[in-house]
């Protein structure tokens, strides 16, 4: 391996670092000022790229690069005004979900407008040549990109240190209440920062056009990398974002040479390592003490079985028990799937609603359980029951690992880490074809003869998945569940009283992992196959939406949420190809209009008429 090659990879890494930085800087600023994790930031990048391509024929490349970012900033302003402002003050999770809903909608809009096929962008006129460095050709465009990163960093630095607005932004990043004290409307400040962040993301997308192939999955690819950069650099730190972008850009550039199949794994490892050593990232402001609760949002008292009344739940339970007598094979399959998804959602609710741990990659546990079970059957010839147990155990182990690595992390960092973990597993399932079959998945994973009858498998699902949902609901009222709820309410106070907060959180992650893994295994034998999709972001979001539909703090709400979600999904999927648009809109609507979940709808209506 000669020197020239190393230099090329180095320059290549720096060039992609600039792109990453443009996205990550805005993401970091938005978080710093608004404490909002903008999942739609990758979508803004993608819009910047597509708008540029659309404008090039009319105005030429360079004018398009200058015009697209302000358009993206306007779109960002609309998102902020219409969706984020109404839910300001809600828990972080809700804002994360709302922006995720937006990203789903944008993805479908992009497909509607520009089609699903890949688009190769135009070259940059004037910079389409190359210069020779140590005998290798380096594209001029890359050199320009390398310069853009530090230039934007410098501009932001001037903005943050030399202007009054910049001072406010920095003050807000350190202490939200200080903005009020300084007498500026924090809403307007946040609007400005959000639009600036959108502008930078749009610019990143515009500049990426000559280097990247445009496709509708670009948003996710970019956001996952940008999250890694922001977390490694320290949320809220612009300088940290640049340092981390360079680090991760280089890890990618060299990783792709030596471990071409494992670049995501490397990114994840860097992230995990940094977070273990520095829980607030390389340059993040170290918070003194965690806030008491999520701002104004105080969890309501736990409601036993939702608010629909015990009688209805009893009826539902009887219905589930009687289903094999009433339904045919198809109906039982649908019902079994609903129960499995309910257990999956309930396991997330255990983490988030009960223990206050936000996971944005809950599919990691579900998919790991599914794949572990499938691999046991496929490669080792295990029976279904041992395989299900192995799947559950593998996911529990993953929960223990994540709890160990992320035990000291604050909410958003852990949510990011879980997302990165899920993406890592997704990449492994996708790329390690020899083990997992890659995109083709593993098939022929049917239950053994004794459980092959739909009624038998439904019974097994009812026993295991239904049992898990009921078990978690009951557990919430034991001293263990009570302790978890206490540390969710006020972790500092809980620790001062004597609760082992880190240990309890780890246990919650192990249990949530075990239940999600069991659900994943049951899902595999229900479908007879497993594909990488079970580890995907969409699966994680399914869990979040079901949990919110049922009500974050209503136990047993997972059942209601799973039923409603499955019904909606089936309806949306049969009625339209643009399920993401429908689903995204639904998520936004749900978060903005009905944060208490479906169970609270009845109570609200009653309250209104009274």
């Amino acid at each position, binding site marked *: 391996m000669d020197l020239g090659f190393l230099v090329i990879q180095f320059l290549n890494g720096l060039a992609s670092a600039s792109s990453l930085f443009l996205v990550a800087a805005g993401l970091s600023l938005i978080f710093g000022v608004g404490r909002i994790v903008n999942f739609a930031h990758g979508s803004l990048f993608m819009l910047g790229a597509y708008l540029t391509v659309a404008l090039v024929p009319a105005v030429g490349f360079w004018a398009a690069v200058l015009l697209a970012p302000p358009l993206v900033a306007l779109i960002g302003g609309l998102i902020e005004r219409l969706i984020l402002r109404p839910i300001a003050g809600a828990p972080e999770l809700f804002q994360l979900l709302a922006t995720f809903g937006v990203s789903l909608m944008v993805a479908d809009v992009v497909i509607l407008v520009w089609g699903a096929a890949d688009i190769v962008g135009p070259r940059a006129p004037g910079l389409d040549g190359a210069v020779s460095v140590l005998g290798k050709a380096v594209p001029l465009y890359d050199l320009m990109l390398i310069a853009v990163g530090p230039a934007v960093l410098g501009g932001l630095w001037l903005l943050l240190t030399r202007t009054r607005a910049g001072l406010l932004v920095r003050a807000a990043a350190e202490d939200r209440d200080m903005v009020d004290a300084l007498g500026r409307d924090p809403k307007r400040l946040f609007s400005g920062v959000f639009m600036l962040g959108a502008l930078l993301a749009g610019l990143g997308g515009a500049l990426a056009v000559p280097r990247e192939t445009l496709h509708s999955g670009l948003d996710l690819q970019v956001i996952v990398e940008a999250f890694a950069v922001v977390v490694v650099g320290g949320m809220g730190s612009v300088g940290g974002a640049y340092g981390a972008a360079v680090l991760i850009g280089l890890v990618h550039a060299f990783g792709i040479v030596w471990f071409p199949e494992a670049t995501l794994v490397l990114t994840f490892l860097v992230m995990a390592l940094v977070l273990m050593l520095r829980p607030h990232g390389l340059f993040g402001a170290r918070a003194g003490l965690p806030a008491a609760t999520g701002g104004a949002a105080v969890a309501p008292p736990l409601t036993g079985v939702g608010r629909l009344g015990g009688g209805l739940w009893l009826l539902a339970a009887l219905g589930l028990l009687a289903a094999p007598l009433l339904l045919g094979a198809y109906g039982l399959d649908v019902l079994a799937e609903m129960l499995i998804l309910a257990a999956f959602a309930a396991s997330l609710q255990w983490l988030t609603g009960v223990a206050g741990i936000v996971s944005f990659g809950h599919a990691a546990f579900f998919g790991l359980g599914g794949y572990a079970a499938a691999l046991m059957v496929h490669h080792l010839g295990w029976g279904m029951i041992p395989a299900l147990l192995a799947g559950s155990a593998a996911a529990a182990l993953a929960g223990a690992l994540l709890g160990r690595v992320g035990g000291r992390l604050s909410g958003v960092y852990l949510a990011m880490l879980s997302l990165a973990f899920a993406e890592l597993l997704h990449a492994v399932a996708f790329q390690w074809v020899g083990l997992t079959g890659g995109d083709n998945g593993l098939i022929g994973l049917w239950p053994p003869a004794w459980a092959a009858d739909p009624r038998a498998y439904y019974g097994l699902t009812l026993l295991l998945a239904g049992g898990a949902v009921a078990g978690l609901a009951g557990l919430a009222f034991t001293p263990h569940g009570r302790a978890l709820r206490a540390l969710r309410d006020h972790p500092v106070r809980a*620790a001062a009283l004597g609760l082992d907060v880190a240990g309890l959180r780890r246990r919650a992650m192990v249990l949530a992992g075990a239940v999600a893994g069991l659900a994943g295994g049951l899902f595999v034998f229900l479908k007879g196959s497993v594909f990488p999709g079970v580890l995907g972001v969409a699966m994680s979001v399914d869990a979040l939406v079901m949990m919110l539909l049922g009500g974050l703090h209503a136990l047993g709400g997972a059942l209601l949420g799973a039923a409603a979600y499955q019904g909606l999904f089936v309806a949306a999927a049969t009625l339209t190809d643009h399920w993401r648009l429908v689903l995204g809109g639904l998520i936004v609507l749900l978060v903005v209009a009905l944060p208490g979940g479906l169970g609270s709808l009845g109570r609200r209506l009653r309250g209104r008429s009274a």
Partner: protein
Amino acid sequence: MSPRDASPPVLRAEGLVKAFGGIRAVDGVDLSLDAGTISALIGPNGAGKTTCFHLLAGQLRPDAGRLWLDGRDISRLEPHRRAALGLARTFQIAGVFPSLSLADNLALAAEAPRRPRPGLRRRAAPDAATLLARVGLDLDPGRPAAGLSYGQVKRLELAMALAGRPRLLLMDEPTAGLDGPERDRLLGLVAGQVAEQGLTVLFTEHDVAAVFAHAGRVLAMADGRLIADGPPAAVAADPAVQRLYLGRPSTGSATGFAPSGQDV
């Protein structure tokens, strides 16, 4: 319990230092508390009192210095391990668990020092109504803690701290937000616990009258250092303390570190 005179001080701190950025919020504090005593820690805003409490109870790690509880080195122990050894504290911004019932708040507080990771079994819970009555709360133990007034939260927090039967209780501004009679009642209650159970108490307080009425000893703090230590009358007569309270207002409040546990 070992005889009082022969036992080491309940709490001993040596050379505690904590800096935030360039500001030394706590700058070389030594202190020692004997069993069954009530001491007050006074000083202007920003003097380092709350940071000192965070160091003693483990919410913050000191940059330098060591700490002993009943002769045992606790310098590196996490907060819950200190709680298990009998250290309890309340916070300047009172905090309870709003989603739990009052009874659950108290049951949890009673068990936590001995069960850092509670399991499934329910232990015999303390009599919530009695504990509530003791701090002057006449409320249904079954109601959630959400929606309590600030004064009620303050008292519930104290009831929770006492429910764990601690050896040492640190109270950060226990009476802030309470009126005069309430203030006396609450500190009188704590004094009763000291007399009955040999509890040791250190509290911060802005109300000088309350300090004189209840503390047997006063420690005065300014700019991260202890500047006076002794019986209340002696400390009140100390020229350095008088300058602090009567002379030019201290610059301490401009040092910029957040005085509460509420910062993010």
